[in-house]
């Protein structure tokens, strides 16, 4: 009798814990949705003012929208729509570098959204250094569609479901001893393996720190400090890979073609494409 009561109390505690957590999330989400709605309204008002050629009003509205979107992000509420809208707002305020940064963040969370890709492509056309990193062939995108069309969270969820299905099929074969279940186990095990590898790759790729140049023009220097000579210049919107951080300076690898006038044959291309840039001129993706 005592054991039964303990079990009931244990189960009820879990139920209350999950229900409480869910309700808290739901209430918090209502507040966030309200802020998001207000931010969108400000953006639309800015758009309207822009159409009516009221430049000052438009700037005010877009700034207000940016403030509200950033307020949402600071509260710990992350959503691809916020990043995308923030990208749009920064673009309207004349900061295409920041816009690209937020579009890239949005892309990670909403990999299937065509609008994000369209806006990135549109902005890239006007950049001096518009090279895009990580462009994969279309055939690869079709063959490994789950990798390119699902975000990390979605791949994790699918992996969990496949894992549970695999466990269920293993349990079935323990008790039922049916030969056909073996084939199902093989299928689930294969899917699970592929998904685990995909998950690993995706997690690794996202762990690689990327950045966008947000200053109009930036000097890439030989070392982490203004006292080092500039090696080459890159421009707003250029995407870079951050390799090291030191005293508010980032060592970055750039994706633009760098012409080495000294033509040092022994030097690797990788070496010529790296350099140091101040932290303030880079926006981390």
């Amino acid at each position, binding site marked *: 009798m005592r054991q039964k009561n303990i079990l009931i109390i244990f189960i009820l505690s879990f139920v209350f814990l999950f229900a409480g957590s869910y309700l808290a999330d739901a209430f918090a989400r209502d507040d966030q949705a309200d802020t998001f*709605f207000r931010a969108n309204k400000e953006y639309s008002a800015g758009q309207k003012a822009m159409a009516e050629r009221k*430049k000052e009003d438009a700037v005010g509205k877009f700034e207000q929208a940016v403030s509200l979107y950033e307020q949402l992000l600071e509260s710990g509420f*992350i*959503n691809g*729509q916020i990043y*995308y809208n923030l990208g749009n707002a920064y673009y309207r305020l004349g900061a295409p570098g920041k816009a690209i940064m937020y579009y890239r963040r949005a892309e990670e969370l909403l990999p299937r959204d065509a609008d994000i890709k*369209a806006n990135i492509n549109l902005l890239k056309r006007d950049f001096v250094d518009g090279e895009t990193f990580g462009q994969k062939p279309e055939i690869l995108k079709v063959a490994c569609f789950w990798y390119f069309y699902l975000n990390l*969270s979605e791949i*994790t969820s699918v992996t969990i479901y496949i894992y549970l299905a695999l466990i269920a099929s*293993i349990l079935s074969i323990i008790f039922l001893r049916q030969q056909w279940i073996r084939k199902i186990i093989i299928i689930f095990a294969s899917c699970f393996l592929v998904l685990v590898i995909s998950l690993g790759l995706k997690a690794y790729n996202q762990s690689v720190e990327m950045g966008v140049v947000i200053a109009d023009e930036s000097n890439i220097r030989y070392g982490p400090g203004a006292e080092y000579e500039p090696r080459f210049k890159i421009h707003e919107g250029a995407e870079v890979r951050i390799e090291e951080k030191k005293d508010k300076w980032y060592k970055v690898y750039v994706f633009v073609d760098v012409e080495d006038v000294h033509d040092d044959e022994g030097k690797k291309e990788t070496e010529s494409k790296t350099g140091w840039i101040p932290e303030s001129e880079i926006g981390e993706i």
Partner: protein
Amino acid sequence: MMRKVSTIIMFVFMLSVIPAAYAKGVSKEVKVVISVDKNRVEIGSHIRLTVGVEGAFDTDIPELSMPESFSLMFGPSVSTQTTIINNVVKVFRGFMYGFSPREKGRFEIGPVTLEYKGKTYTSNSINIEVVERTPFESIIDEKSDTSGQRVDINKMVFVELTTDKAEAYIYEEIVQSFKLYFQKGLPIDDLDYVAASTKSFLAEKLGDERRYEEVRDGILYNVIELRTALFPLVSGKIEIPPASFKCNIIIQQQRNRGSLFDEFMGGGGRRYPVERSTEPVKLVIKPLPIVDRPEDFTGAVGKYTMDVLAKPTKVKVGDPITLTINIRGEGNIQTIGEPLLAPDGMKDFKAYDFEAKVTITDRGYGIKGEKLFNKVIEPQSEDSDVIPGISFSYFDPELEQYKTLTYAPIPIEVESSEIEIPIHLSVDGAGMAKGQVKILTKDILPIMSDLYSFDNQGSAIYKRPFILSIIFIIPILIVVACIYVQRQRELLHTDVGYARKKRAMAHAQKHLSNARELLQLDNPSEFYATLARTILKHIADKLNVTPASVTSDNIYDILEERGVSNDVIKELRQCLESCDYGRFSSGQLSKAQMESTLDTSEQVIMHLEKQL
């Protein structure tokens, strides 16, 4: 519910409309018409004659004089019919007679006279030919007509194609009427109208089909009229090819020759397919005169008026002004061309293309409607003070001359604008091939606002390693537990020794429980026997040997070999000796001693369970 409401609305509508309409209808002139169901009849057959009075419903029976050779078979049978079309009520009172001619020849029937409110009204007269019985001449297959009944279908259904004019100008409206005549009361079905080809015309359907009655050669016909407005596209002699029509006539064959009713009553009769074609219609289409043709004439033929509205009239440089030009009238509204803005005055304006919207307001007796042109213009300098004059020319076919509608320049106020206009909508690629679309501006796509999928993606499950590890570890533990349980179950089924060993304790406890019951029943001999048996069986189960092979003599050696401790063996020996003593000295041992032996036995079994 909706049906009830609509019924009430209809009822109220009828109550309000009918009395007013009746007054209107009754005040109209009274008309008397006689008609027959056929004007060629065989001797002995029946003819149905109807004297109809239109416009009055309280008349006397009209006076009818018939030739002597016509025998009255029945009548008059009175019927009243009221129809409401466009709020006009038509009253029709019919007096129907049935006659049977006895002699052949030509007879004139009528006119009929009617006295009504002091006035005398006279009807038309009709000719009837009475003939001998003749072989059947219609299209009906006589072989299939087993009843021998003969009917003349050719006169019962026919079609006509007419136009309202034989001569017209190019683009002028011509109303074409297709009329289907079928004898009143003739049940027809499966109507199929194939319109005349109008490839040299633009065709617009005029209203819904019209249904009315008409007397032709003394026979009353129901008429269905379909009208089309035609606008000729070429000049010269044009022929509208025949229109054709198909239907089935349902003929109820007469079973009773003495019947006074018509042969054609419909429903369940034979279906005779009928096909009719009209005659072609010849038209002469004249070209539009070249003399005095205005420069801005774009082909509009008919009668039109023009209204112009400009809004707003006070703007800044670069602000849009919407110019609305409404051309309304009769003619082919669809093909009206754009009105002309004086080109000299448009230099200071940026002009966008016209947007046109056509509304047909009336299709009753011709096409009437309006074409609304919207044009956006933007003044480019403060010097622009008027929107230039607008003109529109058309050809009036009735007056046979061109007309030009003009609208005076509209004054506007244009103020300077500080903001530069960044969007350039100039048509640089005007010479582009047709079908190519030029992108005017490049802009980002709009923001997202889907609250349905607006949830926190920051708290994704992959960021919670504890939950992830639980999700992955617990199922593995479950699998391990299930494998263990299943293995145990298999051993219990396949390994008898293992099964006996595993179940030994359970069996022993069951037997000890029996012994406890015997203790309560105060049955010492049976109690001690059960105890001894329980202990020995438990040892036999644990050692997987038959109970018979375990006796008090060899048991201690066996246990010693199996490594059972001496204390336990000693305890066992005492217990078994107590049991033997108790069995054979029943009544001498107290209940307390029995309980003590029972407890000892339980302990021995527990110890053996652990050590074996």
